[in-house]
Each structure stands twice: as C-alpha cells, then as structure tokens.
C-alpha cells in the first residue's frame, strides 16, 4: 500500500513537473499575451503556427491545440467565402484533439460554438439553421460544464447581436446577455496565467454598440 502511495505521489509529482515545464509555460505566456494585440492576418497565422509547434512537442496539453484553433477561427473574420470553411476545418481539427485530451471542458465547447457560428457567414440563408442550432447547443453545453465561464454568454450576446430582429435577434436582446457576461467576467478568475481569459474587452465594446441607435 505504501509503495503504491509513494508511486502515486511520485507520479503526481512528475505530472506536475511536466505540466509546469518552464519552457512550456514561458512559450505559452508569450504567445497568449500576443493574442490580444494581433489582428493582422500574417501575424495571426504566425501565432497559430507557434501554437501548432507547441502542440507538436506537448502532446498531452490541450491549451496549445485550443489556442491554435482560436487563432484559426479568428482568421475567418478577415476573409470570406470558401476560405472561411478552410480555416474552420483547420480549427475543428485542433479543437477535436484538444477535446480528446481534455473531455467535457467548458472552454473547448465555447470554442466549438464559435467555430460553428463562423461557418454560418459562408451562406447565412442556407446555413443559418444548421450551424445556428449547432452553435447554440455547444454554447449551452459550455454553460453547463462551467457555470462561472462568461465566454459562452459573450458568444450568445454576439449571436443575438448579429441576428436581425425579425429572426429573433437584435441589439435589445443582445444587451442583457452581454451585461450578464460582463458581471461574470468581473468574478471570473482564470485557472492559470495561460488559461483562456478573452472576451472581456469585447463584451464592453458590444455593450456600447448596443446602446448606439
């Protein structure tokens, strides 16, 4: 029994040691910090590449995959047409790997919701229903998995914001959801220096946009 316990202790120490691999943490911190300021296509691609390289070395970490997917879904916003699908396919590939490493993760489901709604813009008329439903389901799952995560609420706000009032969306509906997200962001503490912590500023931006006529 003692032996097993000490073995277990050792194991947890090693896992701890590996996950706290300083090289990993410093590489991630540097790239995660750059995410907030990077909008340019080529720089975002380079950032995605950085995360992809980290995934290649750190096969048991979900965050590099998560962030690589996050970069690709953000790249869709500066393109249109079929290219959106190409980026979403790439993002999906990474997020599935992330999901297999860390199942039932609220942040991962949030990103899956974001990828699904990015696909709508290729052809809103024919895709709205399918991907809108899919995105909504991922969002609800994300909320269920972590009740303190503000990001699914932020995404829900954007979904309302970009849906015309006649289709059940609109600024009036979006605003209370953004406000709920904003209060949740105040209370939210990221798990670590490299854990997902985006969307707070954008929420404030959208609240202001909702007030505009």
């Amino acid at each position, binding site marked *: 029994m003692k032996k097993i316990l000490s073995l277990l202790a050792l194991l947890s120490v090693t896992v701890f040691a590996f996950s706290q691999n300083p090289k990993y943490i410093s590489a991630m911190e540097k790239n995660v910090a750059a995410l907030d300021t990077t909008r340019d296509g080529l720089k975002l691609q380079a950032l995605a590449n950085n995360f992809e390289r980290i995934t290649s070395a750190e096969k048991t970490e979900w965050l590099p995959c998560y962030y690589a997917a996050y970069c690709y879904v953000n790249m869709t916003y500066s393109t249109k047409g079929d290219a959106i699908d190409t980026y979403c396919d790439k993002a999906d590939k990474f997020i599935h790997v992330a999901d297999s490493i860390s199942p039932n993760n609220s942040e991962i489901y949030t990103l899956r919701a974001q990828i699904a709604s990015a696909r709508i813009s290729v052809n809103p008329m024919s895709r709205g229903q399918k991907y809108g439903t899919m995105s909504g389901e991922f969002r609800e799952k994300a909320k269920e998995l972590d009740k303190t995560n503000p990001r699914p609420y932020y995404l829900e706000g954007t979904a309302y914001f970009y849906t015309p009032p006649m289709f*059940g969306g609109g600024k009036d509906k979006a605003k209370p959801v953004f406000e709920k997200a904003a209060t949740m962001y105040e209370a939210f503490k990221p798990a670590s220096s490299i854990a997902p912590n985006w969307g707070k500023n954008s929420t404030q931006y959208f609240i202001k946009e909702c007030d505009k006529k």
Partner: protein
Amino acid sequence: MKRIFSLFTLILLSSTAIWAQTKVSGKVLDQKKQPIPGVNVFIKDTYDGVSTDVDGNYSFAAADTGDVILVFSFIGFDKIEKKVHLGSKDFSFSPTMKEALNELKVVTISAGTIEASDEKKTTVLKPLDIVTTAGAQGDIVGALKTLPGAQQIGESEGLFVRGGEGSETKTIIDGMVVNKPFFSSAPDIASRGRFSPFLFKGTVFSTGGYSAQYGQGMSSVLALETQDLPDRTSSTLAISSVGLGGGYNKLWKEKNASAGFDLNYANLLPYFKTVKQTPEYTRAPQFSGGSVNFRKKTSSSGMLKFYAYVNLSDLGIKTLSIDSTNGFKNLFELNNSDVYTNLTYKERLGEKLLLNIGASYSTNVDNIKTWTDSIRSQSDMTQGRIVLSRGIGKLSIIRIGGEYQYTFDEFKLDGAKNGYNYHIKNAIYDNYSAEFVEADIYITPKLVWRAGARGEYTTLEKEYVISPRTSVALKLGDKSQISLAYGQFYQKPDRDYMFYPQVPGYNKATHYIANIQRVDDLHTLRAEVYYKKYDNLTNALDSTNNGFGYAQGLDIFWRDKKTIEGVDYWISYTYLETKRKYQAYPKEVTPPFAAKHTASLVFKKFFEKLNLSTGFTYTYASGRPYYNPNNPEFMSDKTIDYHALGINGAYLRQIKNCFAVLAFSVTNVIGNDQIFGYRYSYDGKQSAAVTPPAKRFFFVGVFLSFGQNRSKEVIDNNN
C-alpha cells in the same frame, strides 16, 4: 529512488539546457515559383521552428542535432515531412509545396449536368434556389424549367429536354426510379410534381450524356437525393389559399435517428370560386395525402432511410366539345390513388469500398369517367438496386451495380355508346434488369476520363442491349473547364404501346455534348453544344421502332450574384433545332413540343432590413408547331410566341421559437395570351386553342416551423 531523481533532474535540465545549435534556413515556394508566406517550418516534436515571412524566407536555430524530421505545413498545401541530418554546419533547404487537392481544384464531369447542392461547392444552384424561383410555385420541375435545355411546355407535365418528350426524362430518388413523379392530370392541363423540394438535399438535372448508373431516359435524368438527419426536432404548419398541411419530425437525443410524418389536404374549390377558370369544373381538384420517413445512422458511415408517400386526388372537368355545334360538353372525371415507398441503405465496407442498396414499391391507379366510358388504369413497380463503389488512389473510383424492376400495367375500359356495350381489358408485366460498370479515372487532378457501359434486358422486348457511355473533363484554370460526353440511351416504348399485340422495339438516342464552363463564388458561365440522334423511335403506323430524328442546339447559362448589391440573377438561353418522324407522323418534322428559342431571366433580391425576399422570372419561348388538318403541309403551323412574367415574395420572421414565412406568388402578371397549340374537330372545320385553365394563378400562404430547440428554452428561462 536516487536514480529516479537524477533522471528527473536530467529531464528538467534537458528541456531548458541549450545544447549545440544549428541554423536552419531557406525559402518556400509554390508550384508557380511564388513565395508562400506564413508556412509553419519546424522540427517535428520540438518547439524549434518559425513561420516564413512575406517573401517565403525562414531561418531558425535548432537545438536538436542528428537525424530529425523537418516539417513544412500550411493551410491548403500538402504537408512536407523531410528527414534531414543536422550537424554542426548551417543547414539550408528550400522546398516547393504542392497545393492540396480539394473539391475546387479537382475537375468534375460537367457536360450535360446541372447540379444543386449545399455540400458541393462547384454547383450552379443551391437547393434553396428551387424554392425561391418565381413562377415555379415551389415545384422542382417548375424551377428546373428556368435552366437551359428545358422547354416551356404548359399543356402537359414533365421535363421536355433538348427535343425530347416528357417521357424521355426519368425521375430518380436516392437511385430508385419513380414511376409516376407527377400528379395525374386532366387533358391539356399540366400537373405538378408529387414531391416537395424540401425533401431533398441535392438535385442533379442531367440534360444528356449522363452516367451508366441510370437508364431508360432517352433525353434526361433528374436524380434527387433525400435529406439526411434533420438539425433538430421540429413541427411545421402550412395554411394557404389552396389548402392546409402539417408535419412533425423528431430527432432522437443521441442524434443518430429521426422519424417524422406530414399530412396535407388541398382543395381548389374556394380558389376557383374566386378566380374564374376557363374549363367548367364539376369537381374542383382535391388532394389528400401524407408521408412518413425514418432515418437512422447505423454506424459512423452507415445510413438507413425509409420514405413512404400516399396521395389520393380527385377532379372533374367539362370542356366544350369541338366536334359539336350545339354546345355539347365533354366530361372527364379523374380519381387517382398513388403510393410510393423507398428504402435505402448505405455503408462503408472498408476504407475504400462503399455499398449502396435500395428497394422500392409503388402503385398508381387512375379511375377515369367520361359520358360513355369508365376506365381503370393501374401501374405498379417493384424494384431493387445494388451499387458497389471502390476508390482507387486518391481520386479515381470504379462503380459496379445492378438493378431489377418488375412492372405491372393494367388497362380496363367499360363503355356504352348508342346502345352498344364494349369492354377492353389488357394487362402486361415486364421484368427489366440492368447491370453497369463505370470508372472515373483521374489521369491528373485536372483531367478525368469516365468510361462506362450499361447492359439492359426486358422480358417484354426479349433483347439485350449494351449502351456505352463516356466523358472527359479538363480543368483549364482554377475556375474554367471543358468537358465532352458521348453516350447511347435506350428506352422502352411509352406505356400505351406496350399494350399493342406487337410491342415496338426499344427507342434509342445517341448524345454528343461539348461543354465549357467557368464557375467562381459569385459568377457562373456555361455554354454547351450538343447533337442528339434518334435512331429508333416508335412508329405507331406499323408498330415498329423504325422512327427516327435528331436534335441539335446550344444552351447558355449565366448567373451573377455580385454585380448588383443584394441581387442574384440568372439568364438562360436555349437554341433548339429538332425533327423527328415517329408515332403516326407522315414525315420528319419539328414536333409540337419544341420551340426554336427559349430564354429565361430569373431575378432575386433580398431586402435584409425588411426581411423580405422578392423575385421575378421572365420566360420567353418562340412559337411551337401544331397540327392543322386543313394545311396540306404537315405540322407547319406555329403558335404565337410565349411570354410569362411570374413574381413572388416572402416575408420572414422569427417569433420566439417559431419561424414564420408569409409567401405569395402570381404567374403571368402581365396577362399575356399563352397558347400551347390547337385542337381540331374530326372534320377540321372547328378548332380550339389549348390555353392554361386561367390566365394567372395567385397564391398566398403562411408557413410556420416550430423548432424544439432546448437551448432556446434555457435562454427564455434565464431571462
């Protein structure tokens, strides 16, 4: 324990320690020698690497030395993994990356084929286009008639393609033939297709030269593919100026199965009371029917689908007899019942082997009454089909399959005229079997050659025929391609001739098609020339198949979604030259179902702020020949030109979890005279124009769809 600790320190050290470093650099180019920026260049399983700059250059220091794998990865290109040896010296490598194959870069056979699909990117139409085309009234065939190759025939249903009759187009659902795709109709009044466009996720309309997978359509094939699992559980309700309908479709929570039904009833009596019709209806058309469907994902790649359709329809009509001068009216009463079922299953049997099997049964009974006769006409079809497809290499594919159809046709007539009773009863059955093999061989991703053959045998004809089919397509650039097709197509003679004591032999057509097209996200341009030779057509005079004919022409299609903001329009033009000697024709002439020039302009605009989608369709066809017994030159008279302007509109709105569409449409808004031909009395002294039953058709309807979306409920509860 000590040893483990030292190992542990070693691992920790190794990850931070900097050992020998080697500079790795180079430039990444594509196949056109252009630099690729943003390529991820790295040593596999390490942090070491960099992205290429704007000029495709890269340079980084690798901590690892020895044998490593250098990776080049970029979206849209094939990944390169190269084993290299890194020593103490700088290492330089400048690869050329190959564009990855995707749907847009691989050529597909386009000659004779117009496709509507959401899944494929290179298609000319989307399934939604079929529903939103003005003038089509939500009818699949109505929408396809705005495409080049099809004729504007208003007096009978069906797709009349490139000089072919309506019966030369076969309708196929999930590979299974539909014996009676249209509602039964009264003489000289076209009916609609039986199936709702919302049933299908893909439509392939072939105007000729089609695959060896299909047969028995001398001119054309309309292949429809049913929807897979729905996105969610939903119910629908429709109320319109012609009837009501509703349905429910349930998606299982595991999202691996769905089941649904719909019921509908239409009665044109209220409408006919409001809008006067030319013929006198003794019984206004009435339709009642429903369908059930079941779909199940049997595995990650397996899918089982069942669909069953039942419909009963009824109508009665009185028309002025052209043979009498005292206002005598002919009576035509029709009562129809139709059942169609379709069961299909597909599954991947190995990484590269796909199995498709299907079975279908249908039965259709028409009961017709005139003043003197009472007719019962029945058509049943039972069929089975199996297809195996095997992928070869990355793109090539070979398909082998067979099908079998058993048809039973019965015709009964009981009549009484001038105190004399007569009875006719005829029944025939036929066993039709076919097998085919076809290969799509990709010589390069830009050049594909399709070669196939189909063998067919029917017990009625007792003759085995083989029809070779082949086509080739070459991609000229990213967006343009040319394609050629050739094929032979056999068809049994029309149903009426099968009751003849001596059944005429197979009808046969040979197609030659050349096509050029350019497709990008927002524009489509297609031009196609063709020559079709009819070697054997039914000669009713001697009950043989020594009739003959030809058709040749040009089809042009242009679609533009970009030039005018928020507007999507297409223009199609069809030039057709055709003559045939068949049925009881004394000589080779242009048949009455062929106009020399046909053109359509389809225009759609979505007003986003108003949530209003509107459109119009303008169609023109030059006059068609008709038979005038007083003219010694057979079939040399021509009708006036045909003009039709149809408009439609839909207002869309979401109320809670209900999606509502308020739709309207009007055909022939301007009220142009439309004449499809003339009927003459026996003595030729009197004639009557064949016209639509009313100048215009108005339609208003509300469609409600209630999505049972649990996430929505959650939102509503939270707020």
